[in-house]
Structure formats: C-alpha cells, structure tokens
C-alpha cells in the first residue's frame, strides 16, 4: 500500500513519505505506525562526512586490516527523528553497516555486503546503500575494511539523505471496545496485519528500519 516511491528505487534519493503521510516501520521485531510531521533534506556536504581512522582514535588502518565497528555520531538522532541515508566511501576502503551495533545491515545467512568506492559505478545514485535510522539509542555502527595491502591513513565516508520528524499514531477505538478488543487491535497493528492497519492507521508506507 505504498503511497510514494519504492524505498530502494534506483534513482536519485527522494522522500519515502510526505508530510502528513503515514509510515509503518519495522523495528525491534514489531511494526510501529507514525505520521510524518516534518521532512527536510540532508544535503551531501562536509558536516555529513566522517573520517573513520580519526573516529577510531588510531593513525592508520592497517593493510588488509579492519577498523572495528564504530559509532557514527553525525548519524545519531533523538526520539521522534528518523534518518533516510545513502553513503559511500571517499577513500579506497569498504564500509559494512551495523544497526544497533550487534545487527548487520545488508546481510544474508552467510554474507555481509559492503559499500565500496566502485559501488557507484553500477549504482550511480547509491540506492543500494540506503538505510534508515530511527530514534534514540538505535544508532548505526560502521566497520571499515582496507582492501589494499598497505596501510591507509584516511578512511572518509560521506552520507546524505533526508531527515524526518515523526509522531506515533494512536488508533481510535470504537467507544464500546473492551480492553481485550483494544489489546487484540494493538497486537494486530504490531504484527503488521494489513487489514487492521488499513482500518486503524489508514494508507501507509511500509518501511524497514534497522537490519533485522
């Protein structure tokens, strides 16, 4: 029931929901339903750039080495905020995304995909690097790998995208609903039951948040 574009459309990044649109976000194994109250772009610029060698308080990333996953402070948000971000490395390194530090993003059973300098060759708008960050304490971590056999003293990553302010939607129950009926609706909403969501939330854009 997506109202706007597909969220991973292979084109320039665009809003996944407009102001006053609803979004249904899958996070912590449940669906949460929000209304977008504000959106603004996050243009590609120097404040949205991080140098992971410095962020890790080291002087270089070893040849074929790893900078263990680090919090990216520029991507920390507060409750009621959501980021919609694409990224790429500006130096010859590869980035692997973790959301909530322990959970890989872009993973399958056996693999954890990374974004490297050549990703933009086949995917010029970096659509395949799209991820979302929602709310306080749901920060992303970035692991950096050096595919070169020698140490590099710089590993910059550039982010850009959109920032949304969102408010939880409180379902309006009929006056004669019992507590049990309300609980059933709440559970169906958390389960992402399409018909219940259509009835109590309305049209919505279904959205994954962190890696799950």
């Amino acid at each position: 029931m997506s109202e706007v574009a597909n969220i991973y459309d292979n084109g320039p990044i665009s809003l996944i929901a407009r102001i006053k649109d609803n979004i249904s976000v899958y996070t912590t194994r449940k669906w949460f339903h929000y209304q977008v109250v504000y959106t603004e772009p996050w243009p590609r610029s120097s404040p949205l750039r991080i140098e992971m060698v410095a962020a890790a308080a080291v002087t270089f990333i070893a040849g074929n080495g790893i900078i263990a996953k680090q919090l990216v402070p520029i991507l920390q948000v507060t409750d009621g905020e959501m980021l919609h971000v694409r990224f790429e490395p500006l130096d010859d390194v590869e980035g692997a995304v973790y959301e909530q530090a322990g959970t890989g993003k872009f993973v399958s059973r056996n693999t954890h995909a990374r974004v490297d300098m050549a990703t933009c060759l086949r995917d010029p708008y970096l659509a395949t690097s799209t991820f979302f960050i929602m709310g306080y304490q749901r920060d992303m971590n970035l692991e950096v790998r050096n595919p070169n056999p020698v140490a590099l003293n710089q590993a910059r990553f550039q982010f850009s995208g959109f920032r949304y302010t969102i408010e939880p939607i409180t379902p309006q129950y009929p006056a004669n609903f019992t507590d049990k009926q309300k609980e059933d609706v709440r559970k169906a909403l958390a389960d992402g039951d399409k018909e219940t969501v259509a009835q109590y939330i309305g049209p919505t854009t279904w959205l994954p948040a962190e890696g799950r």
Partner: protein
Amino acid sequence: MSHLITTGRYAGLIAKAGNRSGAAGAVLIPGVVITIGVLSMLHQLPVGRSFYVTKIMWYNPGVLATLTFGTLSNAAVPVPMFPTQMALPGLADGLSEEELIGAEFMLNSQAAPNGWDGNLYVAASIALIQISVEVAEKT
C-alpha cells in the same frame, strides 16, 4: 587520497598515491618516497592485480641527478620502463599521464630473465630526492 576514475581508458579504476613512503619506500603507508641512491620502491603491486602509472612528481634538493623508473626482474635487475629523467638541482618536476606510456605493471613469476615482479621502482643516481607517484589500480 584516492578517487574513482569515471572517464577515459582508466575508467573504473581508482587513482591513488603510490602505496610506499619513506626512505627507499620502506614504509607501507602511501606518501612520499625518499631515494637512497640505488633502488627505491614507489608502488608495491598488490597480489592478483595490476596497475598503471598516471603521475610522477619529484623534488631534487641535491646535485644534478638521473631518475629511471621501471620494475625489477626476478634476478633483481632493474628494468627501465620509462625514459630516464634528469632531476635538476633544487628544482621540482614531474611526468603527467600524457607523458607516461600507459604500460600495465603486473607480475610475471617466470624465472629471470623472463619474469619481473611488477612493482614500480626508481633507480636514482643520488639520495634524498623526494618522489611521489599516482597510480590507477583496481580497488
């Protein structure tokens, strides 16, 4: 430090500084190499890859010298790949992509004299010449 080349015959490769630095290129971090009067390594061929040299820049703080850029045979004999350059005293100079023959540096593991290691070296006639290179290479 490095950037993706999107046009031209090196499209899809990454332009980056030579991966060696320090005296004779002994340091395994990209940067400026200081010659020691004989061979200095400017770029070490990564395993399973090849590269092209796209820029060479140098500064000679000493007396008139010569610089010969090339690779090394598997008998450890320098193999010149580009015309020998005069490095004038107290002056900087360089070679641009147009002046550098687009030779692909790669490993040939055959025994000497038929094989070479594919790394980029400079044979300098004096020490303390500062050299920086840019290569085009896969990730």
